[in-house]
């Protein structure tokens, strides 16, 4: 059995076989935002390089929590299509935010602090895993792990009711996913993956229309792939089962 099948990894639709792990997934081969760093202003270069080179130590989560959190993050944004040296560290950045109490400026009533919410959430995830499979979340297959998380996504967790009395299920889900995507898509590897140009001061952009790349960007080159067979996260369904989720997290002042 190949590694990818064992992992419940994604499928290469051209060959029908497991998708090979890549240095750079996505449709912009060889596009490297970091290759442009000499064109960035100094303050930006410093912030981005620090993010890439200085992984903060784990200080908020205890070792067991950190291990569980890493497994959860790997399902919230799986990275098995990335080779080992190009994985984006997620848990350390979230741990640092919680350690430094870096808040987003508000907390929903009926929600505990972000720190407590994450701790309670991990406990709940483990309880659900035990309830459904009689095993620790860490010992489940990727698809089983996804199914555990999907019950929270859907707003129907079958266990940990005492915890859900302390925090609404969907609010926790949005906090968790928000933290994970906020870390992943802040990383230059993720920018390369999705073809985002990255920092652009003082140079700016010249080709604004028609989706044209700048001279230093690259054209899209797609490959067809699919999520693992039966992956709940591949089906787009509304959080908590409702199309209108009231008061989702702020997104940097869209307008």
């Amino acid at each position, binding site marked *: 059995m190949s590694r990818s099948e064992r992992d419940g990894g994604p499928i290469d639709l051209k060959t029908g076989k497991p998708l090979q792990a890549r240095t750079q997934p996505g449709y912009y081969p060889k596009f490297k935002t970091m290759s442009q760093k000499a064109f960035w202003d100094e303050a930006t270069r410093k912030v981005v390089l620090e993010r890439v080179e200085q992984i903060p130590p784990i200080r908020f989560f205890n070792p067991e929590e950190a291990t569980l959190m890493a497994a959860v993050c790997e399902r919230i944004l799986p990275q098995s299509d990335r080779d080992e040296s190009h994985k984006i560290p997620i848990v350390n950045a979230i741990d640092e935010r919680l350690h430094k109490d870096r808040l987003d400026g508000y907390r929903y009533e009926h929600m505990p602090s972000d720190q407590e919410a994450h701790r309670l959430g991990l406990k709940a995830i483990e309880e659900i895993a035990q309830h459904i499979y009689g095993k620790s979340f860490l010992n489940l297959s990727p698809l089983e792990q996804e199914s555990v998380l999907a019950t929270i996504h859907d707003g129907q967790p079958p266990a940990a009711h005492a915890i859900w009395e302390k925090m609404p299920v969907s609010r926790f889900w949005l906090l968790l996913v928000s933290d994970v995507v906020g870390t992943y*898509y802040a990383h230059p590897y993720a920018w390369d993956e999705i073809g985002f140009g990255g920092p652009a001061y*003082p140079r700016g952009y010249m080709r604004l229309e028609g989706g044209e790349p700048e001279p230093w960007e690259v054209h899209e080159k797609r490959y067809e792939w699919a999520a693992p067979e039966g992956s709940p996260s591949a089906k787009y369904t509304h959080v908590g089962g409702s199309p209108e989720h009231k008061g989702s997290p702020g997104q940097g002042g869209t307008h």
Partner: protein
Amino acid sequence: MKEPLFGEFETSPHEPHMLGAMQRLEFPMRRYRNEEQVDYCLVGVGSAGGVLLQRLSRAGFSVVGLEAGPFWDTERDWVSDEAGSHQLYWNDLRITGGKDPLALGANNSGRGVGGGSVHWAGFTPRFHPSDFRVYSEDGVGADWPICYEDLKPYYELLEREIPVSGPPYFPWGHPHGYPYGPHPMGGCGDILIKGCTKLGIGVSIGGPVAILAGSHGERPHCIYRGFCIQGCKVGAKQSTLISHVPDAIEHHAEIRDHSMASRINLGKDGRVTGVTYFDSQGREKQQRAKAVIVCGYAIESPRLLLNSACPGHEHGLANSSGTLGHYLMAQGGNVVLGRFKELVRMYKAPPAHAMTEEFYETDPKRGFARGFAIQTVGPLPIAFARQMMVAKGAWGWGMRQLMMDYNHWGAIALLSEILPWDDNRVELSAERDHRGIPVAKVTFNLHDNDKKVIEFGKNKVMEVMYAAGAEEVVQEARYAHLVGGARMGNDPRTSIVDKFGRTHDVSNLFVCDGSILPTQGSANPGLTIQALAARTADYLISQGTAIFSKSTRDMETPSIRYDMSPPDTWGKGVPRLK
């Protein structure tokens, strides 16, 4: 080009304080002692505070602006990076609740000199004449104590001071043109134009936005990098930090940054005597002043006044009406996302660059009062992922796959009017912040009319997105902007301040910021907040020292002054406009 011509871009350690790429701020700044009784103490140096500080100091008053956040050096402190710009927002704890809770922080609350004008997308539409008499015309909401004609000269003045780029003819509300020409289109603007044109809806192209289409004084024009709401390092997008604060410093105003006001002090004679605040070291201090102007925006202004309760003002300072913190408003801001076969690359160009106000006014056929606008937005990857987390419920492999198509998606958004309701409030929570100051609790509920506008508007925006050729269209419900909480009015029983921003209860205490707006239409409030500040400044200047001693109030409106603008205001821009 593989390398920049002169090597990696570096900031010289000897650079002076920079405001934008070219403007140097000349220090030292005047410093006042706490015991010195200054003429005006302002709390908050944001959109309104920046304009007031500049006007009052230029007129010769001694002014101190207390600002909770930093006095930004844009070259050193700001970054061209989404996650790295977290510090621009009000990140202290607030509690948000109600049936339809508002997201705060990055969504609508700035911190640091320039305030919200640092992170706004920069759309600067004027309010329509009808916005000032919503109650008279529609029987809902409230009337303003002033009319459009009162504010019109200040709109025109601020459009020059900012200055605003936009089309030569803007057809909605009171039709007008703009001093700087329109911007080129980005991907989302093209989508809005295409969709609207197919449906026969007029579009304003290339503005109105507070972003320079041509260079102006020491400010370069836009470079279309798309990081407007992360703070414009270029200095092309206006914030009061770069447009008004330099002139204020030049005229001996003091900005005391990292200074968080905790209460306004009242003397035995019923007049305010100054402001208690925590300085950058966390020490409690008091600044004496002859008059105080609160410019902390829709949550912090009511919070400060509520926290200033004292004998005679048991329910909060200047709250004899009991409406302090009430009638808080946001706007419906649903983001509509469309996937296109072709690439869009919406991260380029300012998020704000095209809009329509075709649906702004009440149309009885639609079955609700008031209306909405449609505007371009341009979410960067993290914002987009979080939108998709809700719009499609995306996570896991689904999120990874969808994000790989980021460049195929475009976004436009609703901006719909939400009426002022008594139950939408800022109150004090039982929780305290790290300084021991009770934090704000915000309660928000949508009412029937609000829901109807959002439903109709959202469907219209989706229709436009499909008409533009999108093969898949999804949307995320959200809210934009904050106003109200200390509204202005003629009746002291139903409002906090009069038409000049003076509190009905205390003759030397003013509120001037978004919180005094009685309604906000479907227009972004930034321009109106700055225009109101300039108008209040003209009133204060015309009153001279009377504000500091007399308790009678002169309600005569002074004529507008054209000699109080920052340098570089006149003789710039496109000459075809008066």
